């Protein structure tokens, strides 16, 4: 029980409680900028406050929060997101008819996740001149399941592994922010059905999901129930399909693109430096 009752744990949970109360008391802030509205969400302040009070950033908080506290905090993330995911799931049942009606779109948009290859791969290879790091970095959104796949196939010490880890770490630090900013701005273009914007919120991690739906609900409040339900449904589809799309489509496709773009840098067929 040392993750709940030890001194290190109690200090951690009290700090989290303090952060959460401050973040939620501030609440949602809208910042209009010419082309749309930037939405600042309590989850952003909570994350930022967490970083500020992190003993790795602010030495003084190390007197209160230990290395062990930081470790326990890592284990708490996956547990603490569960009530949120459960609450999210409860929005699906009441909207089940709308979900079924949007079924084909819900299923097909999973293929749209390959859009990362269309956007990120050319940037990584042609614009930034990256090597095989580009494969790990651009084949998927690089959350935990995708990372595990790269680790299995290439090892994390490979260039592909370094690319995937880099995007994973960067996504962890700025993902919430990016997914809070993007949807309202894309919505402001007026090109897309709000249902399409909503069901695409389920493509990443739990915090990306929260940021994406939170900011979308803030700009289209009268569609709240529908937005949440579609996002929740697509999120669970991503859990179910994401790994397989990665194994059978995204990764082979990215590998092939890399061979075509960099014939000189083809890897020996046997996978020579696999570790």
């Amino acid at each position: 029980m040392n993750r709940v009752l030890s001194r290190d744990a109690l200090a951690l949970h009290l700090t989290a409680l303090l952060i959460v109360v401050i973040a939620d008391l501030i609440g949602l802030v809208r910042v209009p900028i010419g082309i749309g509205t930037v939405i600042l969400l309590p989850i952003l302040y909570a994350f930022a406050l967490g970083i500020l009070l992190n003993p790795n950033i602010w030495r003084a908080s190390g007197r209160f929060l230990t290395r062990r506290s930081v470790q326990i905090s890592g284990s708490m993330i996956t547990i603490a997101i569960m009530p949120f995911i459960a609450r999210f799931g409860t929005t699906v049942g009441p909207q089940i008819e709308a979900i079924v009606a949007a079924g084909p779109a819900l299923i097909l948009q999973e293929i749209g996740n390959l859009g990362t290859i269309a956007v990120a791969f050319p940037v990584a290879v042609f614009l930034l001149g990256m090597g095989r790091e580009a494969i790990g970095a651009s084949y998927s959104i690089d959350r935990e399941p995708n990372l595990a796949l790269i680790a299995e196939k290439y090892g994390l010490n490979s260039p592909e592994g370094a690319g995937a880890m880099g995007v994973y770490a960067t996504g962890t630090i700025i993902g919430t922010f990016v997914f809070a900013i993007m949807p309202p701005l894309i919505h402001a273009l007026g090109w897309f059905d709000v249902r399409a914007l909503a069901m695409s919120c389920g493509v990443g991690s739990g915090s990306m999901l929260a940021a994406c739906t939170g900011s979308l609900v803030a700009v289209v409040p009268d569609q709240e129930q529908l937005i949440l339900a579609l996002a929740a449904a697509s999120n669970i589809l991503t859990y179910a399909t994401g790994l397989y799309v990665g194994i059978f489509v995204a990764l082979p496709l990215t590998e092939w693109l890399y061979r075509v773009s960099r014939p000189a840098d083809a890897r020996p067929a046997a996978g020579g430096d696999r570790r």
Partner: protein
Amino acid sequence: MNRPSAHVQLSEIVKDEDDTSIGLVEKTAMLLVACLIGLAANWAATGTAPLAALPGMAILFAASLAGLLLAAIVPLRLPAVAWVSLIAILITIPGMPGAAFITEAVGQLNFLALATPALAYGGLALTQKEFSIARHSGWKIVIVAICVMFGTYIGSVIIADLTLRITG
């Protein structure tokens, strides 16, 4: 640039996040802490007193716990959160016993407020290693990461939008 040592750190991170070693009893206690903080978050965000939101939170706690159990028992590569999601969907489908009551009870809880605890822990959990990976990876990876997030999202939006136009 000390690449080899950065790589050693990479694999350590993945090891750190392997939580399979934590027992179910301890996970339940951790879940209880998360739910209590969630009640405080909801109170701060909406003004709904924790007592009024308690029945809804008890349901979310039960659904989360059931998800943890199923993930531990069922030999599928589905993460616990996927089970939690499935259970929550099933118990709120109209016609399921108690669906109306459950929908009403969890309605006392603001969905976004329930996400703040995980993000607070997320910020507190960042280790020296993660910062150093981000720094080692450099500015190119930051650009690629933004393209990855944008590409994944907009790709889904475009396909979903086209399909909705065709199917209505």
